[in-house]
């Protein structure tokens, strides 16, 4: 019976909290939404499963993403030292052996046991043997390691006396350094916390993005900038609500509607909010077809929604090849903070457009981005532990994220209307909504809303231009916030 109750104590049920249970349900809801409603399945399935995995309580075992590796200093305790010398009175040119023994006199296991030995003047070390651990002849440090209660370890130092002296061999216990390895999940999560996965995803995105639509109608690039108003207004709103500047920057970027960018910036500025920000960013990206259409309809008239745009011109191969390099230089020379994300984005695009590195481009846009997406989604999901995720701050972040998304959509639409005041060839203002960089969902929403008014109006190609410009715009916004707030 006792064994059975002990076993019960080690199960997840014994340590399960209400928060854990809620997070597991949220994870299952994410998986269900992805499978049933087809909402961003490539991300919601890994995140959902990660949330389920990350919220299984494991009593006494460091298994979560937050159990990272660590180094600590261990002061010696309950240890005794002894040494002998043979022969006891050596002469010049004679060999001498110092035998040092360290013993654990305590009742518990001693870890990171370290002993330092300092040979007397005129004595040169010739060789050594240690019953356990490693001895460094240069520093004189003997890292004994672990010693069980009552156990001892012995070190023999064979030396040569070149000049006899009255000095004694000095032996003392020194504080040891203990390394505690992290959990498996913490190593997977390092790709998120160190900001490694998002640039790799950008590489894949670059390798799959066709900038032709943007290159064929340069004016539409500005819509990608206008939509970033959501990022900066939310940043201000977050400061107003009492968040710190770095936290506000990380929250504001949700309006960029770019998951990897949001994760990258949050990992740099506010790692403690990363889970909530990532979940908010991906949730709203999945909800693009729900959030955007009402705002688009509210801010446009029927006549505006019926505007047909001229078909895009054909873009030459040369233009497409030059663009990634030139665009990278232009963007990062003005906003160097965006160099990591834009460097990878445009590098990926160069792999695609150069036509001579097709194999690399194919790998980046298929296998590599898939692997990184799995690792990113799963480890972000696993980071949503109930005690760090279910907080009032998370609710505020969700609220601000929704606001940010709505403002970004409105910003793009209103800027398109503003541009129409000066343009002879009018832009359909719906296209402005695609300035948020949820590629290609927001462009699809533009197409859908446009076709509800006129089934023969094809806006998808036009909407892709601000859509990809939005990716660039949100990366620049992230770069600016990163460089200003760190």
């Amino acid at each position: 019976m006792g064994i059975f109750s002990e076993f019960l104590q080690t199960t997840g049920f014994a340590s399960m909290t209400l928060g854990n249970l809620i997070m597991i349900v949220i994870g299952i809801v994410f998986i269900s939404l992805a499978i049933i409603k087809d909402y961003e399945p490539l991300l919601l399935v890994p995140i959902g499963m990660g949330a389920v995995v990350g919220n299984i309580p494991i009593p006494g075992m460091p298994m979560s993403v937050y159990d990272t590796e660590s180094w600590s200093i261990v002061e010696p305790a309950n240890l005794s030292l002894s040494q002998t010398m043979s022969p006891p009175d050596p002469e010049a040119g004679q060999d001498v052996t110092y035998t040092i023994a360290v013993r654990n006199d305590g009742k518990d296991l001693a870890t990171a046991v370290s002993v330092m030995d300092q040979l007397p003047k005129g004595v040169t070390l010739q060789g050594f043997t240690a019953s356990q651990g490693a001895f460094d002849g240069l520093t004189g440090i003997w890292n004994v390691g672990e010693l069980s209660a009552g156990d001892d370890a012995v070190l023999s130092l064979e030396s040569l006396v070149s000049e006899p002296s009255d000095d004694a061999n000095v032996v003392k216990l020194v504080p040891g350094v203990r390394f505690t390895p992290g959990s498996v999940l913490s190593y997977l999560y390092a790709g998120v916390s160190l900001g490694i996965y998002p640039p790799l995803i950008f590489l894949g995105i670059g390798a799959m993005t066709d900038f032709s639509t943007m290159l064929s109608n340069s004016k539409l690039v500005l819509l990608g900038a206008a939509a970033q108003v959501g990022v900066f207004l939310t940043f201000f709103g977050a400061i107003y609500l009492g968040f710190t500047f770095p936290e506000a920057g990380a929250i504001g970027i949700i309006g960029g509607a770019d998951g990897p960018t949001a994760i990258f910036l949050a990992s740099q500025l506010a790692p403690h909010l990363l889970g909530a920000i990532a979940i908010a960013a991906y949730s709203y990206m999945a909800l693009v077809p729900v959030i955007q259409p009402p705002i688009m309809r509210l801010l446009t008239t029927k006549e505006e929604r019926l505007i047909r745009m001229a078909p895009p011109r054909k873009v030459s191969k040369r233009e497409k090849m030059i663009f990634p390099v030139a665009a990278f230089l232009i963007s990062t020379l003005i906003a160097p903070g965006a160099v990591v994300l834009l460097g990878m984005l445009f590098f990926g695009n160069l792999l695609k457009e150069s036509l001579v590195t097709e194999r690399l481009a194919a790998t980046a846009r298929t296998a590599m981005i898939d692997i990184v997406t799995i690792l990113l989604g799963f480890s972000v999901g696993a980071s949503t532990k109930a005690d760090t995720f279910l907080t009032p701050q998370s609710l505020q972040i969700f609220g601000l994220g929704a606001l940010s998304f709505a403002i970004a959509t409105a910003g793009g639409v209103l800027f398109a209307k503003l541009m129409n005041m000066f343009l002879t060839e009018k832009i359909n203002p719906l296209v402005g909504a695609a300035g948020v960089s949820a590629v290609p969902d927001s462009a699809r929403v533009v197409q859908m809303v446009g076709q509800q008014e006129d089934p023969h109006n094809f806006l998808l190609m036009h909407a892709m231009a601000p859509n990809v410009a939005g990716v660039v715009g949100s990366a620049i916004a992230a770069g600016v916030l990163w460089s200003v707030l760190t």
Partner: protein
Amino acid sequence: MEFSGFYLLLFESESVDIMTELLQPFLAQATAAVDRSEELARGGTIAVVGLLIVFLVLIFLCLFIASLPKVLDLVQRVLPESEEHYPIAHEEQDEDAELELLAAIGFVLHTEFQKQVSAGSNSGS
């Protein structure tokens, strides 16, 4: 005389201490309000400047994209674009196009076949 006496009383050290104590919460509140407004002003500045930088970068990109065809037209005269430079990539692309075409033909045939099958079963019942 009475007035100066009052002021003297007011500025006696004990009175000053009492006044400071009484005013402390208001002073703290005022300092916090000033700090808060300074914080908001700084946040607002970062937001405006940040948005301007994003616009600036994308305006430059827009100008670059708009001028690129003209520049390339000039380059084309000196250095014409060669088609043979990317034989492997073209072959791969041709293969892809062929596969896409085959897939499209297959899809049409399958759809037509399905229609015929369903029409046959409908007429049969």
